[in-house]
């Protein structure tokens, strides 16, 4: 019952006029960048990180939470109205969603996506309220070796699941880890990998890495193969749906939520697998009209995956808040935001800063409601945003990237570092290396090192200390499994036994 009390306190904190304004700015900005191609919530939060110097933490996180949820809503609008796979999490929505839109049912597709996102987001946030204290009470006894093992699990799971090729996932992770190593060692003050450049002593700021890999990398990639035809946006009015749409949507929403939340909470679970599973499940369960419509624009195929997508976003917050473990690029940037305030997410955060944590969770409920109100009547506006001419869009993205990075230190050197990272981001896109493992490696790497050194110091140099705790041993075994799973799958597939993609943690 105490967490209910704390949540009510959180609502009291989040419902002040100033914080409501921050929430509104957050959800609006989040929806905008979610709708716009080429820019997503991870980069937006990264560009806004400098506000952490002037804005109190509670307000900043309320805004970041709004951006995080808003980005999920915006992504579905793009995939329904513009039939091109955008963010991987809303790819599945495009399958049926765009076909619905082309048959003149865009309003219903947008409505089931928005209302489904609201239902799923609300249920999943409620699950977060229940799950978080449980995980905290379990994690309170974690030692450094357990945290190290957790980080290893996050690394391997993210690298193997997010990429179709594990070598490419691990290469991306390694690039991030190396970037994270640059700078002064926090424990001994030794400079590492700075190549004698004094500006690198403080390390490379996470903002530069995120903006370089996401924004500039994307702009260069788009420049290299820009689709020259203007985007074909399906026109739409106010989003609404009729009684039969409601009847066909509510069960897929609930099933999608049930799939999305646990996958989001797992390291490497992400949104791709549950949205795909939800799509497949709805297809199998389809009867009557739905069965005939599947493949031509069935509402079930939008309702389920969209709910799964949003529920997994809430699930991602469980390991982030309770263990300090980011499992997506956006979560990694949120972790960096905590670090800017000198806060470390984990069991202690719930103890020492309950007002902040519960204020943020309460604002998720508030932001979700705002998003529903914002998205249903304003669908035509967001459809107009989609028509922004691409030359202006990408020129603008580069301009804001330069602005955000220059504003960090007022240093031109940062702009050149940004360019190098932009080239890296371009190469990663061009050759299909996932970007998320690099961002997670960069932010979680230094923490993994600290925990490793702490654990080995306690064990007086004895390496077996790393597997002495049963929790750490299990986590490391799971990491090994995550690394081996694709190899095993390939072996089985060669024998023709396991063709279907499955999740192997």
């Amino acid at each position: 019952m105490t967490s209910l009390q704390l949540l009510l306190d959180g609502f009291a904190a989040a419902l002040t006029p100033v914080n409501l304004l921050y929430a509104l700015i957050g959800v609006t900005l989040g929806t905008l960048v979610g709708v716009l191609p080429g820019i997503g919530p991870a980069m937006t939060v990264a560009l806004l990180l400098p506000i952490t110097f002037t804005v109190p933490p509670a307000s900043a996180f309320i805004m970041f939470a709004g951006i995080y949820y808003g980005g999920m809503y915006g992504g579905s609008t793009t995939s329904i109205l513009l039939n091109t796979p955008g963010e991987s999490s809303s790819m599945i929505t495009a399958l049926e969603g765009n076909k619905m839109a082309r048959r003149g049912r865009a309003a219903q597709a947008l409505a089931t996506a928005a209302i489904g996102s609201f239902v799923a987001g609300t249920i999943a946030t409620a699950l977060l309220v229940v799950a978080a204290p449980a995980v905290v009470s379990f994690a309170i006894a974690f030692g450094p070796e357990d945290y190290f093992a957790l980080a290893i699990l996050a690394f391997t799971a993210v690298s193997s699941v997010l990429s179709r090729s594990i070598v490419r996932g691990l290469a991306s992770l390694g690039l991030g880890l190396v970037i994270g190593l640059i700078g002064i060692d926090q424990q001994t003050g030794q400079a590492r990998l700075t190549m004698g450049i004094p500006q690198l002593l403080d390390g490379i700021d996470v903002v530069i890495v995120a903006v370089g890999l996401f924004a500039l990398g994307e702009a260069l990639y788009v420049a290299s193969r820009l689709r020259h035809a203007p985007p074909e946006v399906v026109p739409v009015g106010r989003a609404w749906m009729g009684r039969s749409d409601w009847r066909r949507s509510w069960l897929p929403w609930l099933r999608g939520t049930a799939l999305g939340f646990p996958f989001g909470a797992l390291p490497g679970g992400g949104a791709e697998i549950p949205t795909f599973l939800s799509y497949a499940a709805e297809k199998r369960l389809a009867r009557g009209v739905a069965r005939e419509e599947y493949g031509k624009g069935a509402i079930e195929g939008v309702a389920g995956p969209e709910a799964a997508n949003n529920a997994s976003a809430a699930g991602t917050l469980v390991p982030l808040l309770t263990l300090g473990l980011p499992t997506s690029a956006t979560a990694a940037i949120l972790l960096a935001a905590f670090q800017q305030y000198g806060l470390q997410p984990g069991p202690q955060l719930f103890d020492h800063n309950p007002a902040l944590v519960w204020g943020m969770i309460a604002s998720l409920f508030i932001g979700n409601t705002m998003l529903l109100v914002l998205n249903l009547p304003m669908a035509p506006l967001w459809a107009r945003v989609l028509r922004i001419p691409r030359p202006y869009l990408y020129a603008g993205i580069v301009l804001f990237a330069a602005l955000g990075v220059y504003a960090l230190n007022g240093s031109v050197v940062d702009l050149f570092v940004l360019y190098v990272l932009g080239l890296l981001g371009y190469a990663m896109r061009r050759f299909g290396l996932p970007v998320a493992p690099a961002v997670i490696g960069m932010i979680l790497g230094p923490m993994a090192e600290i925990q490793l050194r702490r654990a080995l110091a306690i064990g007086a140099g004895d390496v077996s200390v790393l597997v002495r705790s049963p929790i750490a041993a299990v986590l490391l075994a799971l990491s090994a499994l995550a690394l081996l799973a694709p190899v095993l799958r390939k072996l089985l597939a060669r024998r023709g036994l396991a063709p279907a993609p499955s999740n192997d943690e």
Partner: protein
Amino acid sequence: MIGRWWRPELGLAVVVLVLGVLVVVGTLDVSAAASQLGIGPRFFPMLVGGAMVVVGLFYVADVLRGGHGDPEESEDVDAEAPADWRSVGLVSGIFLAFAALLDLLGWIIGASLLFFALSIVLGAEHRLRAAVVAVVLGLVTYLLFVKGLGVSLPGGVLPL
């Protein structure tokens, strides 16, 4: 199709491998002022560098055997189109020139030129409209961030 893909990717795979070697070599310079207990500042970088070398070797081997990653799909990208190196080069040149001249020109002029040049290279059709949008964006961002949010941006040659 596949034959055309894997050659450039080999470059990235080699970068990963070489970076691993560089991390190991670069870490040897770090004087290991370790305490008696536990490990010093060299251990973790060595671990990362060594792992990068292993991953890099696997990556190179994979590319040589004909494996290739799928280019990322995105709303505005035509994944089938051949790479347009002229655009990439121009965007790079414009950005680097902007970075080099920013302190001299100041934010308003520098950012306006950056936006204008990029939008033309990326295919904006109305030059006048692009110029107007560029100047408005340069001015608005300056006023918003400098006057409104207290961020410091260079004033440059304009008397501000």
